[in-house]
């Protein structure tokens, strides 16, 4: 029970981060390998505001979200759009996007180390125990989970109900046909990329309430988010959330039963199973 709840709580925050990545990949078709750094930046802003001005991280997200939106929009327009335009085919864009976002990720880590040093940062926010089903859990973890759950639900509703959300889903399914029904695909790609970045940064601010991070931890989160997106299926919100919870529980299980140093091995075991048996994701159809 303990493992299940801890896993669910961890998975909930993973879901938020992976949703950001999935939004970016599903719509703009760019696998953003600098996604984890956006998370660290969000976490870092939350940390700074809390230690300097005692600002609650739950308020910080209202600052982080628009900032990250603008930053990611600029990244897309200035750096990625030219690659989309010059690519002769999907494969070329893929390679260019991988190299560029890796480059960006390293540049961001480099700048953060240069500006703030490579130390770990953490702060103590709501670090009180709370009892659920007879077991103790950190209140900050529970609050972070609730926060992530509210945001995921909000995003899910927005994608399914609103006009803009509908357009985004249309592009995710088929960019060519979306263009035919009058959707401005390039504009929407930029917006979805920006929104995805904002969601991930908010996830970073939330996760910083209970995890210790440093400038170079981003790549770990990128990797987990990527594995979740692949498990859940590209462009599939339900799948992403389910996959995040599975990964959260799987990791917690391995960490508490076998060894906390094996979390990535656990994630990889899941990844390999998915690659071998359901490469199209949990709910995905077989590609034809």
């Amino acid at each position, binding site marked *: 029970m303990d493992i299940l709840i801890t896993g669910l709580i961890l998975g909930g925050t993973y879901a938020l981060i992976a949703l950001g990545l999935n939004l970016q990949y599903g719509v703009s078709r760019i696998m953003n390998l600098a996604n984890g750094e956006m998370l660290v930046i969000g976490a870092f802003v939350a940390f700074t505001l809390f230690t300097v001005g005692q600002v609650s991280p739950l308020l910080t997200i209202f600052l982080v979200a628009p900032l990250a939106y603008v930053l990611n929009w600029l990244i897309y327009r200035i750096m990625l759009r030219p690659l989309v335009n010059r690519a002769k085919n999907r494969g070329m864009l893929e390679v260019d996007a991988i190299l560029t976002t890796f480059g960006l990720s*390293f540049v*961001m880590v480099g*700048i953060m180390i240069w500006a703030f040093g490579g130390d770990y940062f953490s702060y103590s926010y709501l670090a009180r125990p709370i009892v659920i089903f007879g077991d103790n859990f950190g209140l900050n973890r529970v609050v972070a989970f609730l926060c992530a759950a509210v945001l995921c639900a909000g995003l899910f509703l927005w994608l399914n109900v609103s006009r803009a959300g509908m357009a985004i889903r249309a592009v995710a399914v088929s960019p060519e046909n979306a263009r035919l029904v009058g959707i401005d695909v390039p504009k929407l790609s930029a917006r979805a990329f920006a929104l995805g970045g904002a969601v991930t940064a908010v996830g970073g601010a939330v996760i910083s309430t209970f995890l210790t991070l440093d400038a170079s931890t981003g*790549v770990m989160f990128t990797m987990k988010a990527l594995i979740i997106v692949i498990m859940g299926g590209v462009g599939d919100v339900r799948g992403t959330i389910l996959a995040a919870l599975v990964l959260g529980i799987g990791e917690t299980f391995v960490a508490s039963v076998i060894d906390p140093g*094996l979390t990535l091995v656990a994630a990889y075991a899941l990844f390999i199973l998915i690659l071998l048996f359901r490469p199209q994701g949990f709910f995905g159809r077989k590609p034809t």
Partner: protein
Amino acid sequence: MKRDEWKTLGWATALLAVAALLPLTGDGYLISLGVSIAMYTVLATSWALFSGPTHYISLATAAFFGIGTYVMGSGIEVLPYWVLLPIAGLIGGVLAALVGLATLRLSGVYFVIFTLGLAEMTRQGVTWYQNQTGHKGTYVLTDLTDNDIYWQLLGLAALVYLVGWGIGRSRLGFALRIIGDDEDVARHVGINTALSKVALFVVSGAVAAIVGAIIAPRYVYIEPSTAFTPMLSFQVVIMALLGGTGRLWGPLVGVIPFTLLWEAISSSFPNQTTLLLGLSFLAIVYLLPGGFVGLYDRLKGRAAKRSAMA
């Protein structure tokens, strides 16, 4: 063999002979730089053998390299050095085959993601195993000097070039070029695309593991965090792409300037290596697509056009 092929072979042998004279300078710093350059040349060239034609970006070099060092580290007490090198290659190759079979059927993104975490995952696994058995690292004590390591790496480089040249002339090499251009067409002309890709990935995995085994005596004491450094994978990718993967000699042209730059930056600004890595990636994408080889071909093409007009 054609005449210009003999000529290339002659030049290559002469260059190799000159390179082999480096230890005679007796300058420790130069020799250690030579070891680095030779090591990266082997790694980047074998990386490009696979990734050049297929466009799959492998970040698994560090994993194979680390496994090679561990094979040497754990076997040196039991088996002779010269037996361990092929064993390292064999284990690296088998691992590459397994990874390749699981991921190379799928698109490039899956492959990158998988290889990205491979080194870190193996490191976690080795650390866990060592904790279980209660020792932290292993000593590799041999009487091999930097000179010996350098010569071995040069020999391996020569071997990799020969293999690369042979593949380039073979059906397999032709198949890979077709796969790189259009995988659907490749399947429809009768190519076993998965097997061809796996075969080349096995070559690069085996070579990286052998390099790890050769380098191991240099570390003396091996622990997971020194053997599996994810940075190595990225360095190799950058060097190969900077030089260009279109020709066999391409990666070498990238290795030399980048190794010198890396040495300079990491000795004067040790915290800025990450930034350097990032900027290099961006520079390759935006300023030098195709690397130095691409630039050379473009210049040559322009010169040919000019002389045709004159």
